[in-house]
């Protein structure tokens, strides 16, 4: 393995990670500088239950009409994100646990996930480019993030045989792109996973407090048992 590749797999990645960590820390400070009001009402439901429901919503495709009525698009989202997770994992496994990729079927599974994610990304890109509604709401960052992600995932598929001896090009490309991803992400829409817990927690807490989330099952006929503070 060349020194260049070794540096790309180690020092460059660590530097990029450190940079991302720093920017994220600043971003968190930025978020926490916005004030948040105090709840003054007596709760009907439980904030914890509402927050949990809100956070887990992403894993409950039946919970929202928007996912329930479009199972295909939900699947696409899952495939895309699983592949992303696999590619990120691969960027650690290659330098730090290469033993794992010596097993052919493990490598195969990772490649399959990453490739499927790339295809899901392509499908989304096609839709973003052709659907007039999506086009109207898309920014250059939206397009770039998706195109970049697809290229990065493709590099992951090519790099995954993890055989530097057969040519270091794919590995260099994959690690180079990974480093760029880490640096670019906090400034782009891809940073959404940093905000996800916040947006979800605030919404879930409010609606949990009010007893709106988790939604009461359509249950009782008749007047039913008292559910809320009788008097």
């Amino acid at each position, binding site marked *: 393995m060349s020194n260049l590749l070794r540096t790309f797999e180690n020092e460059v990645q660590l530097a990029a990670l450190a940079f991302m960590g720093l920017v994220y820390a600043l971003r968190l400070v930025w978020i926490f500088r916005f004030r948040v009001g105090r709840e*003054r009402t007596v709760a009907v439901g439980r904030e914890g239950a509402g927050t949990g429901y809100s956070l887990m919503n992403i894993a409950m495709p039946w919970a929202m*009409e*928007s996912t329930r009525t479009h199972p295909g698009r939900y699947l696409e989202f899952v495939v895309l994100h699983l592949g992303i997770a696999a590619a990120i994992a691969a960027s650690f496994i290659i330098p730090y646990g290469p033993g794992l990729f010596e097993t052919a079927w493990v490598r195969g599974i990772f490649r399959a996930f990453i490739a499927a994610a790339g295809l899901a990304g392509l499908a989304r890109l096609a839709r973003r480019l052709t*659907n007039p509604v*999506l086009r109207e709401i898309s*920014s250059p960052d939206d397009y770039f993030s998706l195109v970049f992600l697809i290229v990065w995932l493709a590099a992951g598929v090519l790099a995954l045989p993890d055989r530097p001896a057969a040519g270091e090009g794919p590995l260099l490309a994959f690690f180079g792109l990974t480093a760029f991803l880490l640096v670019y992400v906090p400034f782009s829409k891809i940073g959404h996973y940093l905000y996800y817990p916040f947006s979800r927690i605030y919404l879930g807490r409010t609606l949990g407090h009010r007893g709106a989330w988790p939604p009461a099952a359509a249950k009782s006929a*008749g*007047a039913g048992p008292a559910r809320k503070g009788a008097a």
Partner: protein
Amino acid sequence: MSRRTKSPSGVIDAPLDVAAQAKAREEGRPSVRDGRLKTYEPGANVGRFLELLGRRVSRPLAVSLTACVHCGRCAESCHYFLARPDDPTMTPVWKADQIRKIFKRHVDWTGRVAPWWAKAGTPDGDEDLNRLKNVVFGACSACRRCTFNCPMGVDTALLVRFTRGLLTELGIVPEGVFNVSRDQWETGNQMAVTETDFLETIEWMRDDLRAELGPGADIPVDRPDCDILYTINPREIKFDPRSIAHAARIFHAAGASWTLPKWGWDQTNFGLFSGDDALGAYVSRNLYEAAERLRARRIVISECGHGYRSTRWEGYTWSGYDQKLPTESIVAVLRRYLEEGRIVVDPGRNLEPVTFHDSCNIARSGDLVEEPRQVLRRVCADFREMHPNRQENFCCTGGGGLLAMAEYRPLRLEAGKVKAEQLKATEAALVCTMCHNCIDGLGDVIKHYHLPMRVVQVLELVSRALVLPAGS
């Protein structure tokens, strides 16, 4: 979705009408004179808007502004988009982006450095602020259906209300919003009902009630130490006091100890619609203080969606008043009376098929979903659900204060298409709702789409089914 409507809706170009504002200034109306109600001054509005935006944005708003991934999942949850499927400006995400891009340009990072990359931008003068007004007031009923359908948890309806609040500070509001805010600031109620009018209408209802139920029946006003402080919508006083009579009959049958307050009786709150937290605080505080003054043991809110949300939930936050008393809807009280056997009903008196329309503010921003159904199943012979329902119900079209904004009515009724389809599919003769706004919103949809239905409230159906003890 087959209909093709290529042209964007015209609402975005609705002009800013400041005639009523000018008149109020000329007349030296107190709310304008002392600055509680802002009027439009041409000039430095963009700067002021940006300053307010930076100062007021809270953490839940900031993350709703940053978290959106522009996936478009929310589009089909919006009744405006469903009626105009080829018009991107009807999607929740497009509407939210109109404030989001300003936030990105001035508060967020990437948009400040490279605005075009993140589609960030600054309003270009008052024209643009007026267009923003038409988006957030004219093309959204703040129904929160999109919020419930966003995988990222982006609260678009909250962003809309926030933006409305910024524009209200500049007087860049529809005329109706200005007029109703003015009345509520100056008279403590939305319809400028005077105390005499209030008392005389109550007296009238009281006389009618006694004619029916005997001299023991009453509609008390300002009676101290009651169990229930009953608060109402000014519409009930001004135009439709039947609902007060219904409530009084039921309270009488249940032997309840209750009173209306002479001041602080308006449970509606235009601050929720205009985004003006100060107005929201003023109105709700009047009511909480009335309960304290009269030493009532609980606050009960008549059937009203935004009034319920404002008085039960948001009002305490706006007014910085810690909740001390149970605060609940009359429908929750009715459910309890039925369950405890305090009132007896005969569903045979409501034989027409009845369906229920969930008010957005109650089902999605509140907590009452099963209670009205439990009541209706007891008082109606044929209760049937509308689909989708509960937290997934569609807006009556009149939410967000839109009934007070005549200029947006054509688009509002066009957006009522999905509501009309929902109503029609139930084949019910009556659609019941626990909201005064929804009565008029649904009434408009029924008339516009020629549906053979009538709107009723829960109180009316319960009152009709009420079996009074012999001799009363």
